[in-house]
């Protein structure tokens, strides 16, 4: 229908214009509503699936859900714990949005969190005897970002220049990162007298990120997360970086012909991902544990991969899903005590979530494809 008579063409244009106007006004909201619907349907499917698993395991599903709920949102203190888990999850999620956009599977995000923690610890160690704690605290967070970024750029560089798959490089670097942490804890940074799995020596209180006394929650960390979210959203939506990442992610060959350098942007995306992950690691050290411990990353990196996938790469859903995951993580600590269930149930639920999401996602894609006109 490349050459319709004038009348039809004009009609078409009129329709297009009307549609454009509608798109400009309602589209983001409509999109958000549709995505939320999708999310609700997914969650419903997940609850069905997990209830089945719970029944097979011989546990009453509703009691289990109730205890998870109570264990995560039952008191202000527990809520504070949930937020503590939410902070690194959301930060890593922000970073991963950049790498997913360009089509990279930054599985090395876990190692990037670890290296962020290591760099932050290293800097804070210099500050133990100093009286300018504030300076050291802020510089240490910056160092954390650099640490994560360095670790990410290694993988990005291998990918862009050497063609090494970023999944393998990232996974390898995760092991190296874990090795470095253990070596530091049992070697150069060990506690005077006795080296132990409980980590390095705790920093003096002046080097702790200031927190609300009653809730052990740092408003600074919260502010950082919110700024990160807004920054990521703006960068991806309104700037050339976001557009270029998307273009390269969808078709690197065409993007090259359009004058973009895919390798450079891959490294840039990794830089962002590593920076945010490193920041998460730094906050774990200065805001939560106040020392370096072997499990400093607590698998939040890996978990954040699931968070981003479940939110369908939509930045405004990332904090919601991260919150949900944090609740599951914190709430399931209750399960062994009250229901004699294993706390790994939260892992089962999270796994089921991802499976159900991917299932729903492909179903939705097929549905959209059926709606779509073609030649």
């Amino acid at each position, binding site marked *: *229908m*490349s*050459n319709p008579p004038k009348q039809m063409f004009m009609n078409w244009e009129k329709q297009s214009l009307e*549609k*454009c106007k509608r798109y400009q006004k309602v589209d983001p909201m409509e999109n958000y509503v549709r995505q939320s619907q999708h999310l609700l349907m997914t969650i419903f499917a997940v609850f069905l699936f997990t209830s089945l698993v719970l029944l097979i395991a011989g546990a009453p599903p509703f009691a289990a859900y109730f205890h998870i709920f109570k264990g995560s949102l039952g008191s202000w203190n527990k809520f504070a714990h949930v937020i503590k888990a939410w902070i690194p999850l959301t930060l890593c999620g922000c970073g991963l949005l950049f790498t997913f956009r360009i089509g990279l599977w930054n599985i090395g995000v876990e190692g990037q969190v670890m290296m962020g923690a290591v760099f932050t610890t290293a800097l804070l160690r210099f500050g133990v005897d100093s009286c300018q704690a504030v300076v050291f605290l802020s510089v240490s967070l910056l160092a954390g970002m650099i640490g994560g970024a360095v670790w990410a750029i290694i993988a990005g560089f291998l990918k862009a220049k050497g063609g090494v798959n970023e999944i393998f490089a990232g996974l390898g670097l995760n092991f190296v990162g874990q090795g470095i942490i253990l070596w530091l804890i049992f070697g150069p940074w060990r506690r005077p007298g006795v080296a132990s799995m409980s980590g390095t020596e705790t920093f003096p209180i002046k080097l702790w990120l200031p927190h609300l006394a009653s809730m052990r929650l740092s408003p600074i960390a919260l502010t950082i997360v919110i700024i990160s979210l807004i920054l990521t959203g703006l960068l991806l939506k309104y700037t050339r970086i976001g*557009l*270029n990442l998307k273009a390269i992610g969808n078709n690197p060959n065409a993007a090259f*012909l359009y004058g973009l350098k895919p390798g450079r942007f891959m490294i840039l995306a990794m830089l962002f991902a590593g920076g945010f992950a490193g920041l998460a690691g730094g906050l774990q050290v200065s805001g939560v544990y106040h020392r370096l411990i072997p499990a400093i990353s607590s698998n939040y990196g890996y978990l954040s991969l699931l968070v981003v996938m479940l939110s369908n790469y939509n930045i405004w859903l990332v904090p919601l899903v991260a919150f949900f995951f944090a609740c599951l993580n914190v709430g399931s600590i209750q399960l062994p005590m009250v229901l004699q269930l294993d706390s790994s149930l939260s892992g089962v639920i999270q796994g089921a979530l991802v499976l159900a999401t991917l299932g729903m996602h492909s179903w939705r894609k097929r549905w959209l494809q059926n*709606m779509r*006109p073609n030649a």
Partner: protein
Amino acid sequence: MWIELQDIHKHYGPVKANNGINLKVVPGCIHGILGENGAGKSTLMKILSGFSHKTSGTILIDGKAVNYLNPAQASELGIGMLYQDPLDFPLLTVLDNFMLGQIKRISGHRLAYRHKLLELAESIHFSLHPDTWVKILTIGERQQLEILRLLALGIQMLILDEPTTGISSAQKETLFRALKKLAQEGKSIILVSHKLEDVEALCEKVTVLRQGVVTGEMHHPFETNRLLEMMFGSPPKSLSRCAETPGKEVLAMNRVSGSGGRTGLKDCSVVIRQGEVVGLAGLEGSGQGVFLRIAGGIQRLTAGSIHLIGRTMTKQDHHYFQRLGVAFMPASRLEEGLITGLSITEHIALREKQKPFVVKWQRTQRLAGKRIKKFRVKGLPDSLVDELSGGNQQRLLLSFLPPDPVLLLLENPTRGLDMESVIWVWQHLYAYCRNRTSIVFSSSELDEILMVADRVLVFFNGRIIKDVESSQTDVHELGKAIAGKV
């Protein structure tokens, strides 16, 4: 096999791709479906082959209403379709591809299938070696393989969607002879095309579609003017040619060789001048693609040197070529030309000359609306490019060309477009050469090259074997050169 389509509708949202189509196909007859791009031919055929679902309507086979949901069920009923882009597995051999979809048990008897393949190929004079890799076959040969595979499945009704696009004229003859033979054997054949000459050469009956409805039917012998009228409503305008005297040297290649394609490029020396329109002719993969890619700096040369407006460019990359005003448009639209998943507006933003850090989306959207109008792309600024039809994608690609290039390198710029669109495209391109831009393009249509180019380079086996002014030559001479005879 008698097939009757009654009142077939296919709607995609507000777009009515098929709007009440009636069609009767009788056995032993080659039935042509004619129409320009987007007339609804492909949609109708996809419905008939089970690839997509109709919105409403009835399909009768031998008088009985049938309802099938996918190509597998359609092929059980005896309907098979040869798609525009062959659906095969390039990494497998011819025999493996042939066996796919046929084996019902866990393993097939390779020897038996080998004999079957050779026997079938023999019967319709196709020459395919069972052990060749599919990835090194030409489009025409891959098409032959697909036809053989469909025949082996027991197809009674064969649908061919634009089968003559991108194949050589020798392959076309072989194909036509085979189709006539199959029709004599009592098979029904539907040929979908926008090329009048193909339909006239082959079909006994033709149905013309325009904008989703049947505008007419005609039996052999055809009246060309009547057919054109049914296709376009009014006969298309012809092209007014620009007569520019070639100016200064723009691109010079000196004994350039390169790899890639089937034959690579060997020892090529050529000079392109300002304002010249140069057509590259030759069988697909004879070196034209490599030539264009080397001329655009996308591919490195293995020997020789290349100069652009006096500068040596031998070691530069495509982005440097771009900065000097070279624009390249690839043939594969969705692999290299456009970015699936991105909207028209996003494409425009990517191609903008000024690249501010913050993208001005509203402005870009208005710009996209203007481009859509100017280039007659059927779509919205927010449409994803993969939702557009082939012809519209091509027009969109053309709209991305920079406003003041020095050299345009176009790989099959009018592939898949109907005559009217071809003329429109060239009118647009001629505006460039009035501003002293040089255009180098490849095309599989000799007529197009003769119509629009000032100069023709004929490629054979990776070499330029003929370099001639288009006014000094004709179809026969070029045809011979394409086959390697100078």
